[in-house]
């Protein structure tokens, strides 16, 4: 039985007047993959971005409720967003490598944090790229631009970049929706490799993908969490009618 690493209680989020999240209660155990699914515009990305305070960047956002990471309130007045994001990393829909070399991309977080030891940095680069299952493809041109890689490789380098700062939680917002099927399945394999060591929360529109990789699945609709359960229960035996309708493709 693992302990809960991240908890959300009665989370509301407003964009101006508009209520995008209407009281979400959802907890995450340490380790394993949770998929967030639901129709477009239901608030999946919004929810995901509250978990590492990325919504702070958007003006006029109001958030109520509590999110706790290891018992600490993420939205406490003295919470340090920089530290939070080191613990809770994020991978985006569009691969967004920095316009530097592959090597520099991976160590960027560490180098800015002040790490100078060349051997240590080399080791981290190799380890992170291996974990992200892209090492063999890039090891011979680590010092070339990350922009020259394919979209799928770029995305895995972005995953490696997050791994290099050793977060506990990795958030991914539709990380494969801009990629071809082969690259997508490579990313899936990567995530399956990581699920024993990290808490992974992934938003996806691809229900097959959720059923292939997620231990748990949460179904959102209209800013509410409809249901969360073991993935096979959600897909084989959902408790709610709305979930069943969505899974069987009746809407969304």
């Amino acid at each position: 039985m693992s302990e809960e690493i991240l908890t959300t209680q009665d989370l509301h989020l407003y964009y101006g007047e508009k209520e995008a999240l209407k009281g979400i209660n959802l907890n995450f155990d340490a380790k394993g993959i949770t998929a967030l699914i639901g129709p477009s515009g239901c608030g999946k990305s919004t929810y995901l971005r509250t978990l590492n305070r990325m919504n702070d960047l958007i003006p006029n956002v109001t958030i109520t409720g509590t999110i706790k990471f290891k018992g600490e309130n993420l939205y406490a007045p003295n919470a340090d967003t920089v530290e939070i994001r080191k613990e809770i990393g994020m991978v985006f829909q569009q691969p967004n490598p920095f316009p530097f070399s592959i090597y520099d991309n991976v160590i960027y977080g560490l180098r800015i944090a002040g790490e100078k030891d060349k051997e240590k940095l080399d080791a981290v680069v190799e380890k992170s790229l291996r974990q992200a299952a892209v090492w063999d493809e890039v090891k011979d041109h680590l010092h070339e631009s990350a922009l020259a890689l394919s979209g799928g490789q770029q995305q895995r380098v972005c995953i490696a970049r997050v791994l290099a700062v050793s977060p506990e939680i990795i958030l991914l917002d539709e990380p494969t929706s801009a990629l071809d099927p082969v690259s997508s399945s490579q990313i899936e394999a990567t995530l399956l490799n990581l699920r024993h060591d990290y808490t992974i929360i992934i938003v996806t529109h691809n229900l097959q993908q959720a059923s292939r990789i997620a231990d748990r699945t949460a179904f959102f609709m209209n800013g509410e969490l409809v249901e969360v359960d073991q993935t096979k229960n959600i897909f084989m035996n959902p408790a709610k009618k709305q979930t069943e309708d969505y899974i069987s493709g009746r809407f969304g």
Partner: protein
Amino acid sequence: MDSKKQNKIAIGTLYGIAGLVVLILLALLGYILASGLPQLSWHFLTAPAKAFLKGGGVGVQLFNSFYLLILAMAISFPIALGAAIYLYEYARDNWITTTIRTAIEILSSLPSVVVGLFGFLFFVVKLRLGFSILSGAFALTFFNLPLLTRSIEDSLRTIDLEQREGGLALGLSRWETITRVILPAAVPSILTGVILSAGRVFGEAAALIYTAGQSAPALNFADWNPFNISSPLNPMRPAETLAVHIWKINSEGIMPDAKAISSGSSAVLIIAILLFNFAARYVGKRLYKRLTSA
């Protein structure tokens, strides 16, 4: 008339207009270079000007132009960079930023004569800087600041929001994201903007006539102590630039070879500005390649 034909006529007209513009430009360039190039020589580029006799050069003016340019850039670049970062990366849209933006718009559309006369009243007279390089550099800063701020802001705008989110999501602070991710990525385009604005500053005359002055006392190029009056580096000496020199020769030049000197100076000015423009493209491209493929 069918739409295909209309399309053809429209495209033809546009080509015609574009061609005409290019033609006028080439004719101007050709005329200036054809009448100016024969005047150029090492002597012309290095010798001091002569007021009454023939055979003067533009050495001092050329040096003044570059010195003023460097000073003006050294003052305006840090301010413009700071302003652009504040406006684009930090400021939210409210009445303060709207006011600043409007002020920048207005400043950038002020005729440079007005900037020059303001510089005369404020720096030369009020602050008692006199006709000096410093007065000129301040006036050029006023002239340059709004344009440079806008150009740096545009450079920052070309960097995707995803890059900023990527930096923040790694646990970099806002400032670290800007200085370590956004600025390096924007350097090539910022530099292109800086060099292009250098070209504009280099060719500016109206803002300098009443600030840096219209006289070019002979310089002692062996004396680099900025406190000596004949030192090239002295920022308190009056300093006629190349562009002002051209204006002055044409309005009141009394040397017998005024026409030739004016043509030669114009050619030098045009070549310098063309070089700035080519350098901007070349350096921008090279730097982007260097930075993005380590």
